[in-house]
């Protein structure tokens, strides 16, 4: 897959949005559910022997003669999992859906690394998965991720459900972003979405579609051959066929959005008709996948 290296320019003012407290185990800049050392006061509890005397709230003791210990929200990092579909269907379109998805994944990884979040990128393809994970305080780890994405090429059938199940075994993450065209059978689609919903506190589906799906040339009939399954489908052509396809596409997308909503997955179209940088800086921002990197923002 190909990634335009200039795509990262202009993304400095953004970072991944984290509307929920993170569950990360490492110190970071994100507010977490954990109580401990931090800046923001979370609660009080009675003193028990062994507590750090520096945490005793002496004002409360003077006023109420009770020894209470202050509890703070701990700042932890955000764990991000990016899964890129590298099945054969992603090789279609101009630009290719796979290249578009790779650029989006690289952008998300760039934003995570800039905010000192942990990121793991997994490419699901015919030959299994290829992954790259990095955690850094700056973008020095980004080349590893970009290289992993560029090594992959769309081919065959991607076992997305299996990949997501394997990632689930590694532990739940704060955010999981799946980049795919999701051109799979309905039951498999449900399985994928369910596993995506389970793997992260905030699952996101970036639906990658290209011209071939959005406005295919159906002026002539013929035999369509599925790039992944090899299925041959005799089909009609002409204006009637184009209308029928448009209706089917709208129905399919509506069904997909409804399924995502039901499972708590944030659905975001990521069509190849919009450049990846514009998608990240505008569309994903409006959908609160990313946000402005203002100082202190959580």
């Amino acid at each position: 897959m190909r990634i335009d290296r200039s795509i990262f320019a202009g993304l400095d003012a953004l970072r991944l949005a984290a509307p929920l407290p993170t569950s990360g185990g490492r110190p970071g800049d994100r507010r977490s559910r954990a109580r401990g050392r931090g800046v923001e006061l979370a609660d009080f509890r009675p003193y028990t022997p062994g507590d750090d005397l520096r945490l005793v709230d002496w004002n409360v003791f003077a006023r109420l003669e009770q020894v209470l210990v202050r509890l703070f929200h701990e700042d932890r990092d955000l764990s991000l999992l990016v899964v890129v579909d590298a099945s054969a269907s992603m090789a279609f379109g101009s630009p290719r859906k796979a290249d578009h998805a790779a650029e989006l994944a690289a952008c998300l990884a760039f934003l995570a690394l800039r905010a000192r979040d942990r990121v793991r990128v997994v490419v699901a393809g015919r030959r299994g998965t290829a992954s790259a994970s990095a955690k850094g305080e700056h973008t020095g780890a980004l080349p590893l991720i970009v290289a992993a994405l560029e090594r992959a090429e769309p081919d065959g059938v991607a076992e997305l459900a299996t990949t997501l199940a394997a990632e689930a075994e590694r532990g739940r993450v704060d955010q999981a972003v799946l980049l795919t065209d999701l051109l799979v059978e309905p039951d498999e689609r449900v399985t994928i979405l369910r596993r995506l919903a389970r793997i992260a506190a905030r699952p996101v589906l970036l639906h990658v579609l290209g011209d071939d799906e959005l406005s295919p040339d159906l002026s002539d009939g013929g035999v369509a051959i599925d790039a992944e399954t090899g299925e041959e489908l005799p089909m009609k052509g002409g204006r009637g066929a184009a209308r029928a396809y448009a209706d089917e596409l709208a129905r399919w997308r509506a069904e997909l959005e409804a399924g995502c909503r039901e499972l708590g997955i944030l659905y975001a179209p990521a069509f190849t008709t919009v450049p990846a940088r514009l998608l990240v800086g505008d569309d994903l921002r409006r959908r609160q996948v990313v946000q402005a990197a203002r100082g202190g923002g959580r």
Partner: protein
Amino acid sequence: MSLGQPWALALLALAAPVVAAYLFRLHNLRRPVASTILLRVLRDPQPAAQRARAKLRHKLSLALLLAGLALAVIALVRPTIGGRARQRVLVVLDTSASMGARDHGGGTRLDRAAAELDALAAALGPADQLALITTGASAGVAVPPTTRHADVVLRARAIAAAGAVGDNRGDELALRLADALCRQPGQTQIVVLSDGAGLSLPPGRCPRRAITVGQAVDNLGVSALSARLVDGLGTHDVHVAVTSSATTARTVAVTLAADDRVLDVIPVEVPAGGTVERTVRVTVDGGARLRATLTGPSRDGAAPDALPADDGASVALPDAGPVAVLLVTARPASLLAEALRVHPRARLTVAAPGALPTTAFDLIMLEDEPRAALPPAGHVVAFGMVPAGAPLTLDAAASERGVVRWDFDAAWFRYVDLRDLFLTTARVVGGGRAIIDSASGPLAAIARWEDRELIVTGFGVGDTDLGLRAAFPNLVANFIDWSAPGGAPPAPPEGVLAAAESQLAPRPSLAAAATGPLGSGGFGLFTVAALAAIALLLAEQVFTLTRRHRRSA
């Protein structure tokens, strides 16, 4: 059934890939897609390849293409069903001098052309008509269109045996004649049998084909010969040109002779494929036949000349004939009489002023005033006196006797210089048109006197030093030429071929200048077939594009 261009049948092989392409297009409009999941709604239970409408559409498209291809093949093959249509072949046979060349030995080009005509006649059907038109210096229909081909061949052989002469002046007329005999351009063809030397093919309405005979051979020939009389004493400027079609430069000698008397031998070096011109001055009597002959090409080790006809040329020098001159003088010794006596054309009669003859003369020259009526004459020149009754007068003596002007361009003064003419005495001439002027007035004038041309000078021959000058015999000779009776126009030279006729390399462009294969031409059935084929192929393209546009819209 016969085929005009059987090779064109090979184009039918194109039908196979066309049909194959359509079958492939019909049954294998396969396109890989990312996924068929969204396309299942378009599943066609009866594939397009089997649908009657689709089949009809594709069949119509295929039929249009195949019909176009078939028509194109028919237009190229030109089949004739039920026997060949009657053809008319009009053979234009070049008989110009270059056709007499022998290419590397053997027969002449005209013989070759006759043989070609024989082969052409043999290829014709019995109902086909053949005509023979000759071209060269003149053009004419030797044999009108006939089915008796042998007669045409025999006539051509007879023409070949007679030899080739002249240039190609008749080409245009010959081709016009051929066009006039071309009744049906689709079934008539003009075949030009020529070596191309000097030949031009103007456009015509009938298709033409050229059969070039001859090979590139070396030849030198006299391509121009003319003579111009310089003075009245037989001095001629002779212009001669030699043209070569040899591939190397040649040195030849041009021998000029008049009535077997050699006048000059001019060596010339003729460049390869070029022409050399020379002008020499010779003295020869008028009326003689001047002949220029090339010598040398076969003696200097080079190949023999291919065309002997242009190795010599002759031209008759103009001869205006004798001029009857009457000199009226009372002097026993007269310079004028002597000058007239030595002139080769002057038939001089000297008469005393009182004893004039009565016979007619061409020129009367008066040195003394006649005392009787002048005999009939067209021209009269009076020196220092005016005959009685003449319209001119001799007035007072000229005080200024220097000549300030004379008619430089007049025939009387050719090679006559009157500058510094010394005059002991002179009188001004009155009336007429002055031809010699002094500061005092005209010293000579010309006027029409009844049916005579009269020139009067204000001075006598003895009053001037003119008689001692070289201009004097020229002046006398000019008066003789002026008064000479009108002769026949100069005869054209003989044996002189146009330079193009001596260039014996056959022109490769001759065949290209002709148009159309045998039996082609005209807005015939096959042209219609070809146009229909093009229209059908275009219609098929429009049909396909329109359908696609409608679908995409």
